[in-house]
């Protein structure tokens, strides 16, 4: 008998929900007992009744969720207090930000909890259905374009009208990972002209497959890791990139930056100087604002205006489309859960031989068993 519990998120600005009623029903069907906190999903339009109908018990007690259950599913990392409430040996699945949260991880480890970090799900074809980074980044790509378009004092598509011809807006996307590609696709749907850059040369083809132009900058050796992540650039390379992009940025109506380097602070790609070269009224969206920012001057969670250029750094992008975001995240969790759920024994089995689990399980049996993280800490 395994009790799976889902607490409310404690971050008030995030309306997403870790589990949708539809997925709760799946868990219940596969033999798990499910407990949810009252009000879970209100932000995304799911009512307590829907959860009850799906077969979950509903509690008002936030602590009970942690102390009484075998598996906790959620979006954000727990607070230290929450972590300390955890039942010994229970399983905790959520984002954990393990590279920056050594203390939290150690607390969890001390509780003998088995923790799975959603960020660490590998980027393999088989794991994609559990990959929350991808699902949320994809929505983020869409949202960033919509926000930018909504703030821009121009329209994106071309229009040849009796009142003059409006040229299509120019959009420049830096970083063509999952979010960047979706931004390109969305902006193109709206009829903009798009240029994109990424240090991984291999994505040039992907960018072009979406009808955008790839900006060629010769940075010398760059490449990508085995997992498909970008390598960090040298200072010199970064400088070259900043220079080479500057003209393109100055010409653009909208700039969207999505550059990340796995396990590192995001690179600083757009300098203040370059921002000032843009037309007043132009928009920059800094996806990475919350974790340090690709753009000089961006502030996490806020909109800044510099010389008439608006830098949007709201963060929690996918939260804007919380209903779809919740559904997707909840699907990811459910896919992960059912993949390793043993229906006969009614147990979530952590098999460290499995190539997905070996990558995303951080602590297990009182040890930080994840190689990457252990190396990072030492």
């Amino acid at each position, binding site marked *: 008998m395994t009790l799976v519990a889902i607490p409310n998120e404690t971050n008030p600005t995030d309306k997403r929900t870790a589990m949708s009623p539809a997925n709760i029903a799946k868990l219940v069907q596969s033999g798990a007992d499910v407990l949810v906190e009252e009000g879970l999903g209100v932000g995304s339009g799911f009512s307590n009744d829907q959860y009850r109908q799906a077969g979950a018990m509903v509690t008002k007690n936030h602590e009970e969720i942690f102390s009484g259950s075998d598996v906790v599913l959620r979006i954000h990392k727990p607070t230290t207090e929450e972590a300390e409430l955890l039942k010994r040996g229970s399983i905790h699945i959520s984002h954990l930000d393990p590279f920056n949260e050594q203390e939290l991880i150690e607390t969890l480890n001390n509780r003998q909890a088995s923790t799975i970090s959603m960020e660490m799900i590998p980027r393999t074809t088989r794991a994609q259905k559990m990959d929350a980074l991808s699902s949320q980044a*994809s929505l983020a790509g869409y949202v960033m374009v919509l926000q930018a378009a909504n703030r821009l004092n121009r329209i994106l598509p071309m229009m040849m009208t009796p009142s003059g011809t409006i040229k299509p807006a120019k959009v420049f996307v830096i970083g063509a990972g999952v979010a960047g590609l979706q931004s390109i696709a969305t902006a193109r749907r709206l009829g903009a002209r798009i240029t994109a850059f990424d240090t991984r040369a291999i994505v040039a083809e*992907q960018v072009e497959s979406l009808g955008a132009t790839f900006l060629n900058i010769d940075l010398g050796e760059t490449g990508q890791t085995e997992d498909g992540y970008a390598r960090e650039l040298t200072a010199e390379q970064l400088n070259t990139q900043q220079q080479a992009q500057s003209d393109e940025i100055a010409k653009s109506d909208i700039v969207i930056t999505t550059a990340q380097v796995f396990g590192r602070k995001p690179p600083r790609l757009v300098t203040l100087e370059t921002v000032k070269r843009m037309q007043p009224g132009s928009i920059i969206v800094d996806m990475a604002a919350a974790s340090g920012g690709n753009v000089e001057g961006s502030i996490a969670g806020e909109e800044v205006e510099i010389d008439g250029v608006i830098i949007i750094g709201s963060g929690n992008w996918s939260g804007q489309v919380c209903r779809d975001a919740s559904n997707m995240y909840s699907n990811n969790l459910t896919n992960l859960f059912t993949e390793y759920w043993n229906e006969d024994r009614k147990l979530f089995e952590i098999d460290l031989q499995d190539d997905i689990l070996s990558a995303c399980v951080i602590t297990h049996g009182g040890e930080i068993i994840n190689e990457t993280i252990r190396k990072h800490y030492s």
Partner: protein
Amino acid sequence: MPTVILINLSYTVAAVLFILGLKFLGNPDTARRGNALSSLGMLLAVVVTLLDHAIIDYRWILLGIVAGTLIGAFAARLIAMTAMPEMVALFNGFGGIASLLVGCIALSQSQLDRFVLLTIFMSIMIGGVTFSGSLLAWGKLSEKITGRPLVFNGQRFVNGGLFLANIACGVMFVQHPEQTLWLVLTVLLSTSLGVMTLLPIGGADMPVIISLLNSYSGLAACAAGFAISNNILIVAGSLVGASGIILTNIMCKAMNRSLANVLFSGFGAASGASNKIEGDVKAISTEDAFYILEAAQSVVVIPGYGMAVAQAQHAVKELQGLLEKNGCEVLYAIHPVAGRMPGHMNVLLAEADVPYDLLLEMDDINPRMETFDVAIVIGANDVVNTAAREIESSPIYGMPIINADYARTVFVLKRSMASGFAGLDNPLFYKDNTRMIFGDAKETVNKLIRELSS
């Protein structure tokens, strides 16, 4: 004007009518008119032939014609729509035996030089093969005989021997036309040859065989024409002979087979698919692919990242339209991880204006994959990689894929044998029912469009 000139000029006209008739028969709008024209030609040819001075007694002719007309007309009227192919086979057999008989009759001509004897032999032999072959085809199709191919060891030797014996017989016949033995032997051997060659061929392949035998009966008529120096027999016979061969070829292509394969394979007799990545990669030209698509009733398109790279979405939409116009159902099967970002295929297909209703999720399409005549895999690879189902050691083992290989025929459109994102070999490419169409997906699809729309 001397009668013989009149007759022959009429023959010219009849020939023109046959030519136009055949031409018109190849186009749906004019086919019926074509058939009428060619029957007019036939009528003309028969009527003027009756003027021939060599004909002195019309009674037997009348008897034959009346009897034949009655039988033919009743058979054609009464036969069920579904039984038409076997009826055609039967008619064809009658044509064959008629040629055989005409060949025999020609033996009573005054001057019999070698050449004439040769043509007489040929009309008898081809007529005999056509006759017995057609009867067997009729039997198989109407299920009077089992439709299953009958294969035995050394079959090819036996048939080869029969054929050689037949030829030998022919040589003797030409040398010694006065010895009836050779004539009789020729008749016997050729009819057996017809039966033996058809034994290993399954009922499903019979339409192709009938078309081939039809071509033969044209040749038999043509040979008979040489034997009695008759133009119209030669023209009409060789027209049918040549167009029959072409038609046979077209029909083979529509089944994605070669004629040799049809004749000798004993298709359906033995089969045992292997699960290993072994076997041959079978490439196919767009022209041949066209014949298969053209005959397909239902097609599922499985797009992948390669469609995006090739920017083939508009062409694919166009292809869909043409197939639909051809009476074919077209659906799209979208694998969740196809492409390089979530919803990649949706972006592209929306751009090309493919209606949302036609996009099916993996779980909806897989159960009915068997019902599709053709699955067109356009630049996808990992998402149709059967290693996920078949090879336990594969890194993607257990991942749900779109089961393209369950469709009757699979076309895979890609540029090379290169692997996809996951870097894995794909056993699908080696399956019996898979055909690779190499080249840029957009160009390939455009070629298919061109074939389909002309």
